């Protein structure tokens, strides 16, 4: 005899649905659970009802216009983060680019000082934006502006930190400030340096193509300002960046999040190299302590490294929602990691492996 037939009496639909909706008191819940332990029929009913509820919830989400913002929220943070990173970069580099650089006089060729008047007038207003645009202009097919002491890819590294490490391959960055400009590794000796014709030609091409029409401040940049940016940026090479190692078409500034989060950690970042995660995806957020490092990749997976970022291992998911941020939090018992999901809920972990909701 089938043991399930021993019960012809089952909880009614109301009790079962209340059980599924967690609307029962402790006593009633215990009764239902005890019954379900021995009744495969009622277990099956609950499974199916749960399945229907999930299907309905999915359909409701996809049908309701008010739900769209929520569904797309997980992707909204990317452009938002890009904007924030761009602002942070602007705040960081603007004073440096506009401030006079005494050492520039030593390294700048004489020809640079004799820049066209129009460029000189505009140089005061030229802030951050010309630098990455001037870095190379292979899209326009012209001769790129080349620095006398450094190869152009180095210049690109400094002036566009979010694109660092991407210069070995062409990188199609969707960032509006970079546009479709592609970077090219090209060595050029100081003897070849002749900025004036190059700048003039570049400006003419940019005006012709309209690439620099978006901002009046960026259309006329003097070689001084460009070189200042170069050297200033060169002096700040240690700015950490977790740019992708390959030419993935990701928003450039989104990688800056990892930088910010790593800096936010009490122990700082584990270096300027981007973490090579087992998933092959770029890290969007990292945090490090002495030897432990945590990184969240673009898929929201968390990885732990116990050898300062050399080897990474995935951490079993113990949180709900999509993990978007990890940071080091100083507490009474020392530094702990804190993970934040897309809903803003936080989890903490002392070792990076076991997480508890905060």
């Amino acid at each position, binding site marked *: 005899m089938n043991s399930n037939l021993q019960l012809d009496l*089952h909880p009614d*639909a*109301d*009790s079962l*649905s209340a059980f599924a*909706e967690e609307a029962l008191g402790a006593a*009633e819940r215990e009764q239902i659970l005890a019954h379900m332990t021995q009744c495969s029929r009622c277990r099956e009913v*609950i499974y199916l009802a749960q399945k*229907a509820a999930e*299907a309905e919830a999915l359909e409701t989400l996809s049908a309701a216009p008010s739900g769209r913002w929520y569904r797309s929220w997980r992707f909204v943070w990317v452009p938002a983060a890009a904007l924030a990173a761009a602002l942070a970069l602007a705040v960081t580099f603007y004073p440096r680019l506009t401030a006079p650089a005494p050492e520039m006089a030593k390294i700048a060729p004489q020809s640079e000082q004799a820049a066209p008047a129009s460029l000189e007038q505009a140089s005061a207003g030229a802030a951050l934006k010309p630098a990455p645009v001037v870095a190379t202009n292979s899209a326009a097919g012209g001769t790129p502006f080349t620095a006398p002491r450094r190869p152009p890819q180095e210049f690109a590294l400094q002036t566009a930190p979010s694109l660092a490490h991407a210069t070995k391959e062409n990188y199609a960055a969707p960032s509006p400030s970079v546009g479709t400009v592609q970077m090219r590794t090209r060595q050029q000796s100081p003897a070849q340096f002749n900025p004036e014709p190059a700048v003039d030609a570049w400006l003419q091409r940019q005006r012709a193509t309209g690439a620099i029409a978006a901002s009046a401040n960026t259309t006329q940049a003097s070689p001084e300002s460009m070189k200042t940016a170069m050297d200033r940026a060169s002096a700040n090479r240690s700015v950490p960046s977790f740019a992708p190692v390959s030419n993935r078409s990701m928003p450039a500034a989104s990688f800056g999040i990892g930088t910010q989060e790593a800096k936010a950690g009490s122990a700082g970042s584990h270096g300027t190299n981007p973490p090579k995660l087992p998933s092959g995806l770029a890290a969007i957020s990292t945090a490090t302590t002495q030897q432990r490092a945590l990184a969240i990749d673009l898929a929201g997976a968390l990885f732990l490294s116990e050898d300062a970022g050399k080897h990474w291992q995935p951490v079993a998911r113990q949180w709900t929602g999509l993990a978007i941020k990890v940071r080091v939090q100083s507490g009474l018992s020392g530094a702990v990691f804190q993970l934040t999901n897309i809903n803003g809920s936080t989890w903490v972990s002392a070792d990076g492996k076991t997480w508890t909701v905060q």
Partner: protein
Amino acid sequence: MGITPSQHVEDIASAPESSQLLVPSSPLLKELWREAGAAAYGLDQQNFNRILYRVGTARNYGLEPGATASRKQQAAFFRGLRLADLVLAKACASGHEGAWEHFIAAYRQPLFRAAIAIAGSETLGRELADQLYAELYGLTARDGVRRSPLDSYKGKGSLRGWLRTTLAQRHVDHHRRTRRELPLDNLAEGHEPSAANPRPQKLPAELLLLAKAVVETLERIETVERFLLAAYYIDGRTLLEIAPMLHVHEATVSRKLRRLVAGIRKQIVKSLLGYGLNKRAVQEMLGADPRDLDLNLKKILQISLPDAFQEKAAL
């Protein structure tokens, strides 16, 4: 729809006139009545009071059977009910036109969607939903009185959840009924011992001890743990499926399951050592082929329960 039920809301309450808790002038009753929107369906406070009384006594106000609810507990129970859904269901069951219009607008499509999700196909789902829909409207007549399954809704869970669960019950019952009707020849072979593979008549002494230890251990574990074992090992459900039933994360289910299995093993070892076996013998015994044990884990997990449910599932 073709059929217009003529029964009125006032007729549905067959509960005693006197209520243990509420009287028509009670401020709580007024508050609940207003909150439920009962006036929209022509349900006065007196009949609303009867409905509440019937629901409360049927569920013993959410307390264990035999316990007596205080007024405070009763009030808390009533406040926890889905009053709007409850009133709508009762009004529909009694054939109130306005209630049916609201029900159709709010629940018809979700009912079909749920049925399709449960049945796994649109054809079967629509058939399932249509069948229930007809019953909800009160096609079933008993003793000359039209009855609707909606009358059994007691407002503890949501009406939408009740509809889903009712659909699932119908589907499972239908599936089991048709499965039982299969010819005996079609039953899965191998369930019964064949001549070529006879079941051992008698277990060796050490296996008997092991079986005893297993039974004793499983009998001791808690209800939730037994449920976990049944769902995971007997039903073959995934952690993802089990987690929402217990309202925990699947990682929690995984952790609980791992701990549970480890605990059971530890307890079995302890029991065997208690029987006087040495550690080596115990280890050897744990390496025995489970098929050699004539144990029905399904039965062991299904320990008898208190008479909690006095109600037939299917209406």
